[in-house]
């Protein structure tokens, strides 16, 4: 009717005021970030902390269409202030405390902390005890890698890939029960050795367990590792190049997946790792699938290490003669007499340990007089690779977030400590 209408520029007044919850819930994004996202028609999605694929953390994801532009972590939901708690406990009481971040991997966590004390007090550890420590550490490594494989599988909707590693992990738990008496959190390693000797029968049983696990993992490989849907989901996803991985301080298997051959067990060998033959699996691509395959290969290497330990373990004491124990084979009866009065000479003592998920740092500052640490610094691998994890999310699709999450095996309780 009216023919040509006057062309007007329309603008819709979209409210760019961020919701009040951003402030009241202490969301770690500035107001400008939200306003900018609203103006550019981006989408801000909160993944977590009550989300089936987030774990105990929140990831604030800014989406452009289906692609992640920015990922901001909001960790700390399971922070337990372990460093502060450690300042109020005897040195020996800290052993069970400091293994809590990664309960399956307690061998490595015990080992890292106990070696700090041994280094400060110059305690010589008997060889049999060293072998047993390696055994615990490697069992924990297999268990943790299986756990992470299960989480990776369920994040991609593969429930069989979730159940099978958890069932296989049960064998590891059984072995740990026979050694330490506890399924997880064994607190078995003490300054100067291990709590008690392990019977020959138990060692033979662990050998059989390793055989069984190997067989079951072959089935797992057919169903999950070589599954075309799994390969499609993980290949070329969340790529960290060698330079990026080094720049963001990624550690452990995730660093090795990007092509950096760094393993504390080789670089600064501790215990008897020097005498054992094992390879360090290294990948080239730095994508999710390589990160997963590196850990699968590490399971095989750990099993090889355990076999060597069972073959080569020497007879002898398991508690150092530097410790005042009634028996050299069992600390029971003299535990507090021998270990409660530990006081480190003044100074700072640091150890690096290769835990299942990467490099673990323990650093104790002692004032030389008190029987508790003056300050304890404790950096877990999860915290170290959180930055790399967030960087690898950028440019990927929203659906890839869980796949990348699983490929890193990020474990919030470990990172938050």
């Amino acid at each position: 009717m009216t023919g040509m209408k006057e062309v007007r520029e329309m603008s819709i007044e979209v409210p760019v005021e961020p919701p009040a919850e951003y402030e009241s819930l202490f969301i770690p994004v500035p107001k400008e970030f939200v306003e900018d996202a609203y103006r550019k028609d981006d989408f801000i999605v909160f993944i977590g902390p009550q989300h089936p694929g987030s774990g105990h953390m929140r990831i604030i994801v800014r989406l452009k269409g289906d692609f992640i532009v920015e990922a901001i972590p909001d960790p700390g939901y399971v922070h337990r202030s372990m460093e502060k708690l450690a300042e109020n406990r005897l040195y020996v009481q800290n052993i069970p405390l400091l293994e809590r971040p990664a309960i399956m991997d307690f061998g490595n966590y015990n080992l890292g902390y106990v070696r700090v004390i041994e280094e400060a007090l110059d305690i010589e550890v008997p060889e049999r005890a060293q072998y047993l420590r390696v055994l615990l550490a490697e069992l924990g490594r297999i268990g943790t890698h299986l756990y992470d494989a299960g989480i990776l599988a369920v994040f991609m909707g593969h429930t069989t890939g979730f159940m099978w590693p958890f069932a296989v992990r049960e064998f590891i738990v059984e072995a740990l029960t026979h050694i330490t008496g506890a399924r997880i959190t064994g607190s078995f390693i003490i300054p100067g050795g291990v709590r008690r000797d392990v019977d020959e029968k138990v060692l033979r049983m662990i050998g059989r367990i390793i055989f069984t696990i190997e067989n079951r993992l072959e089935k797992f490989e057919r169903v999950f590792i070589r599954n075309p849907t799994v390969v499609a989901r993980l290949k070329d996803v969340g790529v960290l190049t060698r330079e990026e991985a080094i720049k963001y301080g990624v550690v452990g298997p995730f660093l090795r997946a990007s092509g950096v051959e760094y393993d504390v067990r080789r670089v600064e060998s501790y215990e008897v790792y020097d005498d054992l033959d094992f390879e360090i699996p290294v990948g080239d691509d730095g994508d999710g699938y390589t990160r997963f395959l590196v850990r699968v290969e590490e399971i095989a290497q750990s099993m090889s290490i355990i076999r060597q330990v069972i073959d080569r373990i020497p007879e002898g004491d398991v508690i150092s003669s530097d410790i005042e124990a009634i028996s050299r084979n069992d600390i029971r009866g003299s535990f507090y007499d021998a270990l409660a009065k530990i006081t480190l000479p003044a100074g700072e003592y640091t150890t690096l340990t290769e835990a299942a998920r990467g490099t673990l740092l323990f650093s104790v500052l002692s004032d030389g007089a008190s029987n508790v640490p003056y300050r304890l610094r404790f950096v877990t691998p999860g915290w170290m690779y959180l930055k790399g994890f967030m960087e690898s999310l950028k440019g990927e699709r929203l659906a890839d977030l869980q796949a990348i999450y699983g490929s890193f095996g990020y474990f919030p309780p470990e990172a938050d400590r």
Partner: protein
Amino acid sequence: MPGMLEIMVQNMVNIPLIQPLVDVLLKIPVINYIVALILWRPIFAVLIIPGLGAIMLVLMIIVWWERKLTARVQWRVGPLEVSRPIGGVMQVMADGMRYFFQEVIVHRNAHAIYFIQLPILAFLPVLLPILLIPAGPVYAIRSDYAIPAIVALIALIPVVIIAMGWASNNRFAYIGAIREAFMYFAYEIPLIFAVLAMMVLYGSGDPFVIVEKQTVPGILLNPVAALTFIIATVMATSRLPFEIPEADQEIAFGPFVEYSGILFGLVMTLAYEKLYLMSLLLTILFLGGWNGIAIPILGDFMPPFWLFLKAFVFMLIISLLRSIYARYRLDQALRIGWSSILAISIISIAISYALVLTGWLP
């Protein structure tokens, strides 16, 4: 002019097995109307088998079977504690009871009217195709356009799901609704092409003609069309590896994230109901429909029995997918849908034309 009762009695399902009982019941004043109504062919088809009653049976057994089968694959036991002597079949009933008595939360930001009515409305596209799916002598409507009409009615279900995601007014629900829309286009065209291929092959859209012509099952005549149809079924019912719109670890059940209580119970069963409908369609098109070994004692009940059994066995087999595959990403699924599946669906039409033109088929 015959009364209502006569109309119904003349067109009643004849089952020799229960005929003596029916004869007795028809003599009782009020009961006779009820019995005649239930056994009246159109009502029997819609209400009992292959209709509502069969759907309920399928829901009860298939959910239990899927959980039990997955458990067996995964070295577990599966549902057992509810009704231990019969292997935990009643677990589904127990879950249903729980859903029924759970509070239905309608959150403040939802569009309450649509949010509540859509799960109930979703039953319309589930039950309407039943009118057109015949089981031999037991049918409600006979039409030359039954097969296209069934496909069209089934295609309404995703529309309802997308509307649910929109009414939920939640970010995850919104993303899920978008994913559902994308998947919808990725599978619907190959699905229609596969059905089209079979209609070209049989030269009709009437299920009676189609089943009559299947002296050799359609799956052997045109396996490519059958493959397309099966993959499209898996995509359409969002089963793994195409469980993309729901993806609980990624977007927390997508369009259904805000539903709770009995409303969640209703939306959760939608995919199974759709699977049942598509299995019936698959049986008619590819597996010889209601043809089967004659069981005289079942009489008119025999064709629906065979139709149901074939569809049900197909559902039992397809349940295994859940324990084998991980979930594809949306873009990967779309690439599969728009390239390889679309290509083989077009090939299936070509095969059908080749079979018809070379005169291999009467």
